[in-house]
């Protein structure tokens, strides 16, 4: 970015676009789930039910904003803001197009990993501050889940970083001019997708909120717009992970004929739909099953992936 003004305009545009997308996703998810369950989903408010999000927003904004008397008030209020803040900050480093994007950073991948780790504090603190057994169990699960997925998430990303030779997302996209990284790094893609689903606490890895066994998990005590923040944070997280998958494995904005931004949005949209398809398909595994899967299967696989990628990169450079 050349000037402060340009950066401000760009960040305002990204903020507006991303928040609108998150609101729209509330409707998109319900429509797609409906489609895959052979029903309609919300189709009454506005064309195709598109204004359902507006109706939902009016409802959630006007709802009583209640803090339970037994909760730790300051932390209880702070917790939902963390997830939204960190995910929005992560969007700063996403390159939407060759000249679009809020900030270029030579440690963008590390920044993304740092922010996604911080986002988990939201759930952990929310579960703790609610002072409720179900919430605490949800927070506990979130913490244990965080420890397992963050490790292999970072290690799987290192394969991409090795191939591109940079932490800079713009250079990672440029490095995919000849071929998308999903082909050499298909294991990395699958691993990152699993970690991404766990990261956003989406079904099938929504153990921290598991309605079936934990009422609502970490957000049991939350209502009104505080609950809405968790909700928006989840949808923002889906958008973020989808755009990161696009950038890291599917060539970012690159593609023939269409303008770069359109390619980026198309690819991201496909992965958002994949997130919803995963939710529509899979039942939730047991909590310990996910942990042992993460530590005993995905972590060794990530290490092997890293080792082989490193060996190949070294071999090619040596030759």
């Amino acid at each position, binding site marked *: 970015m050349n000037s402060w003004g340009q950066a401000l305009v760009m960040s305002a545009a990204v903020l507006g676009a991303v928040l609108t997308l998150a609101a729209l996703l509330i409707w998109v998810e319900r429509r797609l789930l*409906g*489609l*895959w*369950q*052979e*029903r*309609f989903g919300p189709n009454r408010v506005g064309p195709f039910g598109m204004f359902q999000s507006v109706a939902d927003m009016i409802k959630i904004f006007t709802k009583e904003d209640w803090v339970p008397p037994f909760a730790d008030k300051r932390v209880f209020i702070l917790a939902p803001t963390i997830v939204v803040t960190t995910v929005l900050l992560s969007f700063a480093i996403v390159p939407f197009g060759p000249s679009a994007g809020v900030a270029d950073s030579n440690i963008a991948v590390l920044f993304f990993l740092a922010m996604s780790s911080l986002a988990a504090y939201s759930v952990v603190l929310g579960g703790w501050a609610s002072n409720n057994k179900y919430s605490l169990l949800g927070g506990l699960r979130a913490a244990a889940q965080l420890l397992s997925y963050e490790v292999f998430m970072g290690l799987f990303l290192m394969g991409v970083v090795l191939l591109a030779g940079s932490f800079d997302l713009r250079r990672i996209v440029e490095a995919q001019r000849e071929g998308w990284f999903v082909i050499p790094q298909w294991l990395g893609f699958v691993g990152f997708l699993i970690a991404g689903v766990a990261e956003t606490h989406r079904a099938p890895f929504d153990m921290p909120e598991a309605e079936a066994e934990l009422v609502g998990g970490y957000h049991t005590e939350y209502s009104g717009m505080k609950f809405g923040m968790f909700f928006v944070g989840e949808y923002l997280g889906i958008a973020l992970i989808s755009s990161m998958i696009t950038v890291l494995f599917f060539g970012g904005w690159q593609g023939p004929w269409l303008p770069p931004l359109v390619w980026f949005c198309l690819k991201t949209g496909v992965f958002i739909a994949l997130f919803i*398809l*995963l939710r*529509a*398909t*899979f039942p939730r595994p047991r909590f310990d099953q996910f942990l042992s899967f993460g530590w005993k299967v995905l972590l*060794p*696989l990530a290490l*092997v992936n890293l080792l082989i990628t490193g060996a190949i990169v070294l071999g090619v450079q040596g030759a």
Partner: protein
Amino acid sequence: MPDIGSSPRQTAGLSAVWSLIGAFLQGLWVVLKRTFRRPITVQYPEEQPYLPPRWRGRIVLTRDPDGEERCVACYLCAAACPVDCIALQATESPDQHDRRYPAWFRINFSRCIYCGHCEEACPTYAIQLIPDFEQGEYVRRNMVYEKQDLLISGTGKYPDYNFYRVAGVRIGGKDKGEAENEQPPVDVRSLLP
């Protein structure tokens, strides 16, 4: 990573992993195929569902083909009702009316469970359940239907049935022995030895 293929147990484990991955992908495909199916939802207020003729819905009181009330106020429906939502009062006024009839008849539809036992108990096909379920009300009191709300002008499901034309009861214009398939009354004294 274990040495693949070194022992039969490990190869079995690996094939189990592959079949598991296959099962996951198959699951995704099964759900994705639903994209091209039509929803089975009936969009109710605009699109009316088909109700079978024997649907148990709103309860009505029907009339004979000659236009008289079928109900003879026998109380069998009220006795059969498991939730006691039917109340009525029998009356007779021989100078105006040649038969027994309910002075008032009341069904509390906020209690009714639409079981149809009243219809089964009715000896004259007077009380009938019809295919109509749209009985939503804003005030609970409006769910209580009086006789004028229940009585319809038609015969309902049995258009030709006329209780007094097949029953051996004397009414105005029809004496004993004049009903359909009815023998003339026997003078019991003539049977004496």
